[in-house]
């Protein structure tokens, strides 16, 4: 059980690095599907069997929203806006990976003083979740394509969700579902905005979106 948890967590970390390293938008979106799978899987692995039905439902819902609906939405937006690749990123891909390693290190560092009785199954869960969150932020910071930034947000949200997943056994599931709904709507609204932007500007290069300043 613990082994399985660790495997999925490792998978989450590896997908993060893939996200940092890749330039193709399609690949980025695809990677989020893997993340969704990893998330819903270790959510289950952490609970004692037999799994509560509500937990199973939540895992399936997570998989559906994060692994199916949102990627579909994003792919659609990608087609509509015609943005296949990342434009010249602000931080290069290899540099991003290096930063990623530093962030991973920091994530471990941060959790040294934070001890918990929850999820003792894996010492890696919390750092990995935080690392995913930071990866999401890193993607938003370093990429110029507005759609990639939406994906970045999604990744960040995945990281946060991983914390929630660790708690899912005890936390009221209702809120978890609310969270999921909110993420869905957020990405949806952002997708619409990106679509409108591409109509207004003919592309979704965020360099164009830097007119308002002091």
């Amino acid at each position, binding site marked *: 059980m613990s082994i399985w948890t660790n495997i999925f967590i490792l998978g989450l970390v590896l997908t993060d690095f893939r996200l940092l390293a890749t330039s193709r938008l399609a690949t980025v979106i695809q990677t989020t599907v893997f993340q969704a799978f990893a998330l819903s899987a270790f959510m289950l692995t952490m609970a004692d069997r037999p799994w509560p039905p509500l937990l199973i439902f939540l895992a399936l819902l997570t998989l559906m929203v994060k692994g199916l609906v949102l990627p579909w939405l994003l792919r659609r937006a990608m087609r509509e806006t015609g943005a296949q690749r990342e434009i010249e990123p602000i931080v290069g891909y290899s540099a991003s990976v290096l930063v990623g390693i530093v962030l991973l290190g920091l994530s471990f560092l941060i959790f040294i*003083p934070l001890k918990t009785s929850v999820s003792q199954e894996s010492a890696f869960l919390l750092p990995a979740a935080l690392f995913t969150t930071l990866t999401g932020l890193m993607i938003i910071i370093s990429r110029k394509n507005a759609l990639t930034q939406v994906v970045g947000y999604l990744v960040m949200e995945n990281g946060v969700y991983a914390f929630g997943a660790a708690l899912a056994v005890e936390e009221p599931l209702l809120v978890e579902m609310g969270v999921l709904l909110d993420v869905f709507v957020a990405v949806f609204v952002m997708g619409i905005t990106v679509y409108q932007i591409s109509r207004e500007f003919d592309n979704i290069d965020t360099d164009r*979106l*830097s007119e308002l300043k*002091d």
Partner: protein
Amino acid sequence: MIMDLMLASLAVLLFGSAVCVFAGGSGKSASLMGAITSVTGAILAMGAAGTILWTGKESSLHVPWQVPFGSFYIAVDPLSAFFIITISLVCALAAIYGTAYMDIYRGKKNLGAAWCFFNLLFASMLLVVLSRNGILFLIAWEGMSLSSFFLVMFEHEKAEVREAGWVYLIAAHVGQACLMFLFILLGGQNASLDFDKFTTPVGAAAALFILALAGFGAKAGFVPMHVWLPDAHPAAPSHVSAVMSGVMIKTGIYGLVRIVLLIGAPAQWWGWTLLIIGAVSGIMGVLFALAQHDIKRLLAYHSVENIGIICMGLGLWLLGVSINNPVLATLGLMGGLLHVLNHALFKSLLFFGAGSVAHASGTRNMDLLGGLLKRMPQTSLTFAIGAAAICGLPPLNGFISEFLIYLGAFGIVAKAGTLGSPAVGGLIAMASLGLIGGLAAACFAKVFGIVFLGEPRSENSARAHEVPRPMLFAMTTLAALCIIIGLAGPLAIKLVTPVARQLIGDANVSETSAMACGILWKISLAGGVLIIIAGVFWGLRSILLARRVNSTGPTWDCGYLAPNNRMQYTASSFAWPVIGMFQWLVRPKLNVRFTKGLFPQHAEISSHTDDIFRRNLFAPIFKLISELAQRIHRLQEGRNQLYVLYIAITILILLLVKVR
């Protein structure tokens, strides 16, 4: 009874300001209503204050008021009463003057608003000296600042007026911030900011004093916080300038005195500080005044000078209290306070005069004026009296108050001592007063000589005419008061003795006051004799001339055959030698274009004097802050990525540093 009168006065004023707003924007009715309510309010207030000064008792009114820390707590004690009288007197006369003065703006400007703010200014000044609660005081204080700000902005279409208004508003607010800090510190842990509940936190007396100095000094115009003053006072309509310069800045003095009383026993360095500030303000004020070309600006700088004199008097007071020398304390305080009244009288008289000149000639530039005495005889006469009074010349009122300060200073000097002893304080006061007196005389010789005497230097002054009767009435009254106080010094002392008794609280006050009275009687005698001798000589002269041939002719031209009016000495050239002596302080700029070639076409010379404190102290600070801000503006450079980076960095730092 007393408080009823005061409340009635406030009510009348507020009613007046409300009525004026609705009395029609341009009509005569606004002027009439505004003036009538002002004068009524003034009479009521003076009645109340006069009773208090007469009896020396205190009257108060404490009404709960549902505002945090606030209460409607007002009181009249001799200190307040003295200021109420000063304020009311000047405001009433200014209102009368204003009825005619504002006529030229009829139809062009919203006079209703102007009168509304005038009445508000008057009411808030009264409330400032009445209030005994921090919140009420701050509200009144701000009301005073704001209503005068709107009056300063009266002719807001002029760029320099807007600039002046801005600077004024800033100065007022910086002062207000200090006062907030001050009152709240004094309030301590109390739930109420009533003055009588104030306590000085242990060890905070120095901070409190500095805060009071900064907060009230900004209003009073202590150097270097005076920078707003020479801009703002000339910008307002002249009767408002008179009120601002004559009494509004004195509320700063009032506040300082009041707070020093509340803080508790003064330390010796407070006195020194006030003395030095006073000396610097006095000297710098008069020097800058001397360098001005604009008559109202010049008068505004003279307010800085006179505030300096008052401040020196207060400095001697604190020095006297701290070294337990009641004679020095009493004389300093009485001199300072009496100068508050005297300055209010002659400064408003002079501003009225300057307003009349501007009214009649359309310009305030002295180098364009001249020969107004023949065209405006009565204005000129009153102005001359005001000018002599502000120079402290006997037998006028300015001398009386300055003399009291001198007397205190010499008293402490004659006691001798060592370096660093209060005797040095006395010397500083005395030497500065002497220097200020000489400079002021030079300055007003220039103003009166250039503006009113000689021949007109331009069409403006050639066309000038005497001003309407209400304006003359105000000026004549003030001039008469200047002479009366000058000749009846002992009676003037009676006005401030109750205040001194309240503040110093010592039997010695009566003794010193009686001593001063005795001396002032001799001065009155000398003044009387002076007038009699002058009368005798005038008679002698008339008799001698009556039997001789008396003819007139052109001014002796020293052999030059074609003099014209533009060849007269100008204000700038008159003042230049004096300015030259002090150019290391004042830093005037001379703009010269010499003649060139065999057939020179054009040459010119002009002088210009910026306020060095503004140019070298405040402008660089503002520039520095502004540049720093511009640099910070780059943080908001437009890209989302950067913004998210800020968030990420904040998270990381907080998590790494703060979680332990």
